[in-house]
């Protein structure tokens, strides 16, 4: 993956989040405060506004600066959560000019562990972790250093299944947890945005033929 691939992947992912703003808002309106889409779109736009500067750095620094951009623009819980994930990616890939395939598993795991730590949460609480934990486990199992495209195609499907899983369970973290059983029946907005990110990554990797 070279710099221009990296930049295109980030750009595509941010644009997909922005185009799903209303979907994320409507899910959040049912079980939260209705602003997950607006917050994520604002953060994505802030990254797009600085895309040239943000991607003209080493990969590690780029993730770090994206984290700073997100946390100072998102506002809701997704800011510190996704921001922590990006910071962990930055730390794991520090000093790397390119993404070394052998470091990707650790980077992914560190990012997901960062979200667990920040949100004091885990699998089964109706959060983005219901998508990201299975995706991360699957990545560790499937990725052999040469099958990025096939691996992310699978992760995209796993993400969608993760979202489906959140529909049937009760929220025990975040504002949705105040609703108790009434949170059952709605997909979690954070899980949905994580699934959108995985699908965007998969589509970008395919269309750019990233190795």
């Amino acid at each position, binding site marked *: 993956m070279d710099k221009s691939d990296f930049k295109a992947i980030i750009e595509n992912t941010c644009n997909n989040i922005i185009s799903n703003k209303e979907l994320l808002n409507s899910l959040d309106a049912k079980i939260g405060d209705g602003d997950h889409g607006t*917050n994520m779109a604002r953060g994505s736009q802030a990254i797009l506004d600085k895309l040239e500067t943000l991607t003209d750095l080493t990969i590690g620094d780029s993730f770090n600066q994206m984290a700073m951009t997100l*946390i100072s*623009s*998102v*506002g*809701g*819980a997704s*800011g510190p959560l996704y921001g922590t994930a990006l910071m962990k990616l930055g730390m794991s890939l520090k000093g790397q000019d390119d993404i070394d395939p052998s470091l990707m598993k650790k980077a992914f795991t560190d990012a997901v562990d960062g979200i667990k730590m920040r949100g004091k949460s885990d699998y089964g609480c109706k959060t983005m972790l219901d998508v990201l934990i299975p995706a991360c486990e699957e990545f560790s199992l499937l990725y052999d250093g040469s099958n990025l495209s096939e691996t992310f195609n699978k992760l995209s499907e796993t993400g969608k299944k993760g979202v489906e899983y959140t529909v049937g369970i009760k929220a025990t973290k975040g*504002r949705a947890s105040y609703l108790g059983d009434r949170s059952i029946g709605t997909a979690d907005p954070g899980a949905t945005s994580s699934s959108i990110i995985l699908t965007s990554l998969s589509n970008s990797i395919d269309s750019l033929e990233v190795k």
Partner: protein
Amino acid sequence: MVGIVIVSHSYTVGEGIVEFCKELKNHDFTMLNASGMGQEVFGTNPLLISESIERSDTGEGVIVLCDLGSSVMSSQMAIELLSEKHNVVIADAPLIEGAIVASSVNCPNLSLEELHLEILETKTTSKL
């Protein structure tokens, strides 16, 4: 004296608390509003909180008072982002009540630990 940082999702709520507490202060200490995402948008910004902790620390440490949810997460992240070591705690106490108590009792020679304990009492104070 110990500094206080107010973290609400609403800039206006934070401004109101700081203004109200100015009336209650017996001593001149720093209380800063690190609430909102700018004045218009509800939310919290770890970078703003981090900067406010640095500005309000005069050497005796800082207590952060938050509302709920992501304001706590943002404050925790803000503490991790501090470039220098600061003695700072997030009070597990109600925001407005905690700020009122802090304003009333904060004085020279009161340590961060002592002030923190006073603030924590608001968690169990009965109003009726």
